[in-house]
């Protein structure tokens, strides 16, 4: 039981420090244009990484399961320029449908 509370306290402190790091490192300094150009590309880099690991990773294994069907459905919705809310619902329905029949 003690291990649980140590974990909670330690992880809370670590998370606060991690989230504070960026604002404290960068502060109010005006960044050089090269840094701005890199920061502007963090979104596509991290979004692509989150999409693929949220869909295909189970711990350290790569698998294809119902989540992939959800992502395909979301891709179709995005290609048809569906609103974000519709895209998300279509993905959930697609993944749930595959799980229901498998």
């Amino acid at each position: 039981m003690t291990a649980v509370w140590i974990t909670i306290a330690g992880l809370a402190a670590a998370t606060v420090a991690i989230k504070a790091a960026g604002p404290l490192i960068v502060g109010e300094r005006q960044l050089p244009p090269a840094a701005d150009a890199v920061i502007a590309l963090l979104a596509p880099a991290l979004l692509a990484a989150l999409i693929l690991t949220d869909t295909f990773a189970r711990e350290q294994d790569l698998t294809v399961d119902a989540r992939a069907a959800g992502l395909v459905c979301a891709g179709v919705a995005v290609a048809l320029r569906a609103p974000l809310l519709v895209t998300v619902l279509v993905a959930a329905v697609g993944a749930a449908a595959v799980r229901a029949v498998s």
Partner: protein
Amino acid sequence: MAPRPAARERFRLGLRAGLGFGAAAFVVGISFGAVAEPLMGSVAPIVMSAVVFAGASQFGATSVLASGGTAATAIATGAMLNARFIPMGVAAASALRGSRLRRAVEGQTVVDASWALAARGEDGFDREALLGGTLPQYPAWVLGTVVGVVAGGALGNPESLGLDAIFPAFFLGLLAAELGRPHAVATALVGGGIALALTPLLPAGLPVLLASLAALIGLRR
């Protein structure tokens, strides 16, 4: 470039999106509460959601403890799963206001969905969208955990509703809006490739953190 709407309007747009994120956070919070209760009892999971407020790291640390790992291993695992918040915080930093303490506190509102909503590439970072997007998610996450702890076993598996497909779909919609920028397609391909290639090799969390290196493509003129 179109003029940005006023701060209040941007906060309201963030809040509206945040209600949707909050619904998802509520459901994921239920599953966290249900998973953690047998291991931790009823109080600790709720405290953890209230003070950590980062889903993936809570699941990761809990699974380490459940498999007999030490507190140190659980903390390290959870911290690695949160490491992506460092580059996210760097991107958000220029838009945050006030004293160092205040900016560090505002930085605590960085969570995946709100950050992705607020990251607007070369147009800068939208502080109001970040704050509005996160505001509904915190109470939803904690309340969801309470429901999961209390009712856990009685509720079905959230995966049967396809809820684990929601966040990738959301991120895909946001990514599509980013792809018009210079180098964005190449960066997404390299970042996604790094994450997939490293997933079997490194502990969860690090592949996503290292994928941020793909943004160095921005140094090419």
